[in-house]
């Protein structure tokens, strides 16, 4: 599966770069994240638990960064495994400075998935990943604004975490337009886990 897109951040490439290195912020942006930590240089570990409807599963994964060109670009690879299957991906992120202190983040990647995620979740992945990505960016935008404000006021920024409920609502909103919504409810949980790791990758 190919993942690609872009997002405009209201901050400089340096600020965005730092934001993405903050494991607490990343964990907050991704619902169900139980743990996300830097285990060694440029290597992160994450454990995520997601429960939607009748489906639940724990995923543990590892994220490696490489080819860092601060603050312009980096590459990453991710490998995750859990009860609903496995995931393996590579991707590139490019941060391009824009006018008025903004940054256009471009991302592209190739993700392999397997197990129940692939066999049952295939058709929903695109839709659900879009929901999750847009929701994660909302939180990251807020976090970035908080950080800028806090830095201006000389205090520490609070972390705005997404609740499981926010997340479910966001996905449901994006899916409700589709007629196969009943089916979705069963399969949703599986895909979410994949998509979360895709996001973790980005």
């Amino acid at each position, binding site marked *: 599966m190919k993942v690609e897109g872009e997002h405009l951040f209201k901050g400089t490439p340096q600020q965005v770069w730092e934001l993405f290195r903050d494991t607490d912020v990343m964990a907050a942006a991704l619902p169900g994240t139980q743990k996300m930590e830097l285990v060694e240089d440029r290597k992160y570990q994450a454990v995520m638990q997601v429960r939607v409807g009748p489906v639940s599963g724990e995923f543990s994964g590892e994220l490696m960064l490489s080819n860092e060109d601060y603050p312009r670009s980096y590459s990453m690879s991710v490998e995750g495994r859990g*009860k609903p299957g496995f995931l393996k991906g590579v991707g590139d992120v490019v941060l391009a400075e824009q006018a008025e202190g903004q940054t256009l983040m471009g991302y592209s990647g190739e993700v*392999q998935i*397997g*197990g*129940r995620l*692939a*066999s*049952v979740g295939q058709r929903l992945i695109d839709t659900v990943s879009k929901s999750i990505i847009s929701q994660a960016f909302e939180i990251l935008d807020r976090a970035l604004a908080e950080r800028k404000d806090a830095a201006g006021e000389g205090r520490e920024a609070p972390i705005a975490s997404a609740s499981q409920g926010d997340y479910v609502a966001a996905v449901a909103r994006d899916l409700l337009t589709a007629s*196969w919504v009943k*089916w979705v409810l069963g399969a949703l949980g599986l895909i979410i886990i994949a998509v979360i790791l895709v996001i973790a990758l980005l």
Partner: protein
Amino acid sequence: MIYKIIGKRVKRVEDPRLLTGGALFVDDVNLPEMLHAAFLRSDYAHARIKSIDTSQAAALPGVVGVFTAEDMGEDWEPGPPLVSPPPTLENVTFHSRRQVPLVKDKIRHAGEIIAVVVAESRYIAEDAVEEIQIDYEPLPAVVNLEKSLQPDSPLVHDDLDSNLAAHLVQKKGDYESAREEAELIIKRRFHLDRGAAAAMENRGLVVDWNAKDQHLMVWDATQSPIPIRNGMAARLGLRTHQVRVVAPFVGGGFGPKIMMFYAEEMVLPWLTMKLNRPVKWIEDRRENFYATTQEREQIQEVEMALSKEGRILGIKQSIIHDTGAYNPYGLTTPLNTQSHSMGGYDVKNYESELTVVFTNKTIVTPVRGAGRPQGIFVVERLLDIASRELGIDGRDLRRLNFIDPDDFPYHHQIIDQAFTELVFDSGNYLPVYKKALETIGYDRFLQEEQPRLRKEGRHVGIGVVPFIETTGVGPYEGARVAIEPSGKVSAATGVGTQGQGHMTSFAQIIAEALSVDVEDVSMVTGDTAEIHWGTGTFASRGAVVAGNAVLAAAQDVRQKVLTLASKILETPEEELELDGGLVRVADIPEQSISLGELAVLANPFRGAVEPGTEPGLESTKYFGPAYGATAFGVHALILEVDPETMMIKFLKYVTVEDCGTMLNPLIVEGQIHGGVSMGIGNSYYEKLHFDDNGQLLNASLADYLLPTSAEMPPIEVIHLNTPAPNNALGTKGVGEAGAIPVPAAFIQALENALAEYELEILETPLSPNRLFELLHKQEENQ
């Protein structure tokens, strides 16, 4: 022969039970103290197992045990080679690699079993499966058939030099000389893809070892209970009489349920003996997509040489056939492809190279059609192309090339799936073809309807495709028929029933022979306690092989009835007649005796039975043909396609069938209806999508599209009869027939409906999506 009951449209006697929920299926078996099994299956298509940790799973309350290959110890062994390669062919390469009960070291397809959990309920067992920790080393997967043979391809079986599973060449005549004489040579590359059998009932097993009785009871949704019994006994070190296998009502077989042994069939009997408790496992739908065998992927390059008049001078073929991760079923499927690649045509020169490859995909064994649709597809597609290139009507091409009725038995000089020479026993193809063209209204459609509808902007097309089906092969089947003291008849045969109506059609044979009512015959199929010998339900052979064994046993019982009645009624046998459960003297109808009374007299409680006679009115007989019976048929259809949405609608569907003597036309028609629906699936809906990593991407019935009643056309079924000369009933098989020609006929009609696009479709199954791609590619080319 004029029959009173055989050939009548008798309603199926099993249907009231089936329709009211009164029939026993494996999942209906619930025993006291019964445990439930769930399997941990690999998510990876190709990976090495570095370690397995079952401790957390085993610690869950309600879990009785978690077992891996290591736990099986000496009892671990791969399944048996079910069908070896033909010993009669020279220069055959065949590497036998069989499925294993639990994977020891390397996973070879997604869904392969690594561990089994046995628990007090299936819920607990499934939860525990999720707690098993496996450390995998993922390996690149072998998926693409052609890439599998490249020198740098990963290997499915590390001990082999390549992924080549088998190789052979079959030759008839001299293709190269034929080629030199040819006016036209057509060569095309075809891709035929995988589908699922998708039986309504998934697989399932209940096993119960009774240590006090030293007896293993097995309920198995199998097509082949007797070989399962024999194999289980051998694997477990038991005598065959210590194992009873019952295949009760089975909700569809279609081939995969004859695969022996599935891993589950190896593991469950071992578990019940180890745990001394009954164990149940019912396959879920996702398991069915991964773990139940599949079929049809082949890449073929086929060349046809034709004369100016359109006579087929020869066919040269190269087949790459996907066998999946293992090849327990030998070469049955691709040999069938070869047997059907000349269709019903008189082809004097044929050369076919078969290359079978291992891939990291689910095991391939026959699925209804079993290699035959692929053969019919390539020969019929090539004739359609030849018709365009030679400017000869496709109908004339076919009529010119049909095997002449005087040429039967027609010797093909190649080996078929039964390892004997491919011989077509009988047939008369032209009248069947003519009948199909008339019934569909071919000329009127082309001259009137199609132009009229075209003017309205509608895309309608016609397709008519003849086909053969080799059926009724050996080795043998048996039947036991007995008259009980009640006067009713009990009978059994070793073939299992998965919806074929055996309990009715076999009962009709017995009712005919003994002049009793069909309702008075009770037929048991698929219970090893009822008959000791048999092979199974496959290759469209029930009506031929088991049917003729039933006839032989019933006729023998009739003779016993006459012999005994002659003595008692003091009348010569020739003057006796059987009617309505009585034997009477033809001239003096009041002098009679009932079959029940005779059955009592045949089993005296005192006195002496005469030397050389047997007690009872009972007989067991076997039938095994030297070679099979070859059926013939034609499918003709008219369809409409919307080139905007790519949706298809069938406007008319006609089949004309010559399956020899019909035991029951209602049942024959049911078989054809079911076959056509499978063929429609194979044409336009059903395709298993594997990605480059060997992951199946549509393993649910939401994503894998089966045709429903909404997609099914009304089907008109017409019968003509050329009785099979080599069996007493004259029957030929029809179980797979309905599915065989559909993709070829469908695509012929589709190309006709979209004539302005000048499509040449060389693949199946299509889908609305794929047709859209093909149309748009063609528009760009134009």
